[in-house]
């Protein structure tokens, strides 16, 4: 880490001068995030608290920021020459990703550029390749071609370093469910290299934040679907990753918990973290995310800020247009004459 930081500092000296002041970068983001949070769910926590978790990051971020700036500026030049320049560094760069299963193309030349501090939604119809893409990003699936760079680290060249930066919530994979909730968090934390003491403190915090305190001593196997999602989400965050990759995080989670989770995630992005979520709940994405990519049949059909992507329409209308429009609901007249 130190070597690359130095190398980057030497190589991209010009950029670092402009980019080295993190507070300047984070402040403009904070305002919209805050309003989005209050729109999404009435936040019960005082806004003042938000600075507390952010503090310890600041020191490391100054160093870390340097590593990314070179890539970020390169990527920015290459990807969006005309668009309003987003000066935030790229945290997740997906470049020309291909994946096929036999004759089926699951991901077809997917390219995404996700900036630090964004709340990024990936939407698409069922089987569009969302989960495949996210699995490649998190190192669970080997791509046929393409590159994934997380905060300057190539996921497939230096997997261990890259994985340390990312927190993952996969969809439809099992958990080690014969552990109690507390054991599961301890397990996830320890595998991420945290000390027992740190895990204990964070477990308490996470349990309170997700409302699973009562369930910590029960087996995950006995949890409801929503609870399981929450404990897995807690495990994804326990090592305070820079990037959270969440596949369908709100599925089967009750609205109150979902609002709570969104609140947590928005404070996390406000502090400089980056969230990538996949979902087919357009409403949720439009309300919560600041940027969005629409993936249909493995292709990225649109990507950018929510407003850029949806234009005059709602996100859902735009999505249905891109995904091939509504099927004319003809036929099936028998459904309208009831059998009794």
């Amino acid at each position, binding site marked *: 880490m130190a070597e690359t930081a130095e190398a980057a500092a030497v190589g991209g000296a010009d950029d670092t001068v402009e980019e080295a002041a993190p507070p300047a970068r984070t402040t403009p983001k904070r305002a919209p995030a805050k309003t989005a949070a209050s729109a999404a769910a009435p936040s019960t926590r005082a806004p003042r608290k938000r600075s507390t978790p952010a503090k310890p990051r600041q020191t490391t971020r100054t160093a870390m920021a340097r590593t990314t700036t070179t890539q970020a500026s390169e990527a920015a030049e290459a990807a969006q020459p005309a668009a309003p320049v987003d000066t935030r560094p790229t945290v997740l760069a997906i470049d020309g990703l291909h994946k096929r299963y036999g004759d089926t193309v699951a991901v077809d030349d997917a390219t995404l550029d996700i900036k630090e501090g964004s709340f990024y939604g990936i939407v698409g119809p069922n089987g569009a390749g969302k989960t495949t893409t996210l*699995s490649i990003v*998190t*190192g*669970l*699936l*080997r791509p046929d071609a393409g590159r994934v760079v997380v905060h300057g680290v190539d996921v497939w060249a230096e*997997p*261990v*370093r*890259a*994985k*340390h930066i*990312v927190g*993952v919530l*996969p969809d439809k*994979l*099992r*958990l*080690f*469910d*014969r*552990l*109690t909730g*507390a*054991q599961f968090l*301890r*397990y*996830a934390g*320890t*595998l*991420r*290299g945290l000390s*027992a003491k740190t895990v204990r403190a964070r477990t308490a915090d996470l349990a309170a934040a997700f409302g699973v305190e009562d369930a910590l*001593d*029960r*087996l995950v*196997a*006995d949890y409801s679907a929503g609870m399981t999602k929450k404990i897995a989400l807690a*495990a994804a965050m326990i090592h305070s990753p820079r990037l959270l990759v969440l596949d369908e995080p709100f599925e089967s989670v009750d609205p109150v918990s979902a609002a709570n989770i969104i609140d947590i995630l928005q404070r996390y992005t406000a502090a400089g973290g980056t969230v990538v979520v996949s979902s087919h709940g357009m409403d949720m994405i439009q309300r919560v995310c600041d940027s969005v990519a629409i993936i249909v049949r493995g292709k990225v059909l649109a990507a950018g800020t929510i407003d850029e992507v949806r234009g005059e329409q709602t996100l859902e209308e735009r999505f249905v247009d891109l995904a091939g429009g509504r099927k004319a609901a003809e036929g099936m007249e028998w459904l309208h004459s009831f059998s009794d």
Partner: protein
Amino acid sequence: MGNAFRRSPWQVFGLVIGLLYGAVITVLVVGSLVAARVVSDVSATHSVIVVIGAVVIAGFALLPLLFGVDDTLDPREFSLFGIPNRTLATGLLLAGLIGIPSLVLIVCSAATLVTWSQNPGTVLLALVSAATVVLTCVVASRVTTAIAHSLLSTRRSREAGGVIGILLLVLVGPVVLLLLTVDWGRDGLGALGGAASWLQWTPLGAAWSAPGAAAQGDWGAALLQLLIALATLGLLWLAWVALVARVVSTPEREARSKAYHGLGWFDRLPGGPTAAIAARSMTYWGRDARYWVSIVLIPVIPVFVIVVLVLAGLPPHFVALVPLPLVCLFLGWSIHNDLAYDSTAIWLHLVSGTRGMADRAGRMFPPVVVGIPVLVIGSIATTIAFGDWAVLPSVAALSGAVLVIGLGLSSISSALFPYPATKPGDSAFTQPQTSGASAALVQSLSFFAILLLASPVLIFLVLGLTVNAFWLAIAPIAAVLIGFGTLFLGLWLGGRAFDRRGPELMAFANRND
């Protein structure tokens, strides 16, 4: 049953074997029932039929309770079709008549018509009894299946039930041996007659006994027994209809979950990822029924081997040397497919960048924890049974080597050649449908590789016992060299394989989930 043919070749193979097995049993039973017609000793035939028949009815009734069969005819499955309860109950019963065990039963009980063809009266009685027997068996098995389904619907009770089932099966072994030692020629019939005399008045034996009693001229007893049998059937039928009505209209039973306090093994094993994986493995060995099965079976297998060897006429003196290395062999081999047991939960290891070495080493912890006391106590016990303290070091060395070699090779095979295992939460008895040939190949290869690598130590031990005591001193040295060599090489290779094959392991888990 026709549908059963429309599946994978292996299942068809299993079904064909089952059909053949059923056919052979049917032929044997029908043959002996027909032959019994010409035997003059009617009361002996009567006793035999009553006892065996009672066992059959008990089998139909109890087996579903033990194994919690995966019930495709569960009334609950039909609840959304809105079929009237009585129709549904009858339909499900008729469906229950189709199947290998039921077919065998129908043919065999029909054969009792021949056995009791003394006069028209007994034939008529035999016909009614045979029909009663078949219906009783089918209704009883449906009723207990439904009960098992609701009792065993919670995860914990299902797992406990499965393990109790195994223990019972294991206990049946000695009982069979004991039965074999009875001198049947002399007092067998007496014992059977004694059992039959009271079984014929129970619901289990009554239906089987009625025509026999009539054939012996005791019509009063026969009619009374038929009454008992019909009453039993009637009660079972009422219970079945009531159960169907209940099951269709009630939701599946909710699991009550148990609270655990503290972090268990995670607190006992402080440290990094390796310790955490060790703690997780320990917890799983304690909580997951799939591991219980191997833990229960490991001490049982050597017992059977000893019995076989002693019966084969080997001196007990030498047989005493066998069980310990055998237990260690199975213990080391027990984790050769450990990774597949995690199923897709393995993603956590992959996304957290867990080092392969940590994963491999952590998984070895439970067999090591079990193995060390087994080694120490086992070596001393073996030496005492053998009667010569000179063999202690080499016995311990051989067993230790087998264990450690097994762990090393398991570490490689579970990362390189995982094969489908029973999924988490499934009954420990269900085998994955896709296991097929690769499983058998990996199992036998990994098993014999352990034997092959341990063979030098074994040869030195045998030489020491038969040729020269000098070899007894060489055995431990060879054991340490080969054992730890394999262990560390296995850890390293297995770790490397895990590091490189992460996505492939994930794909394997996804394929088989």
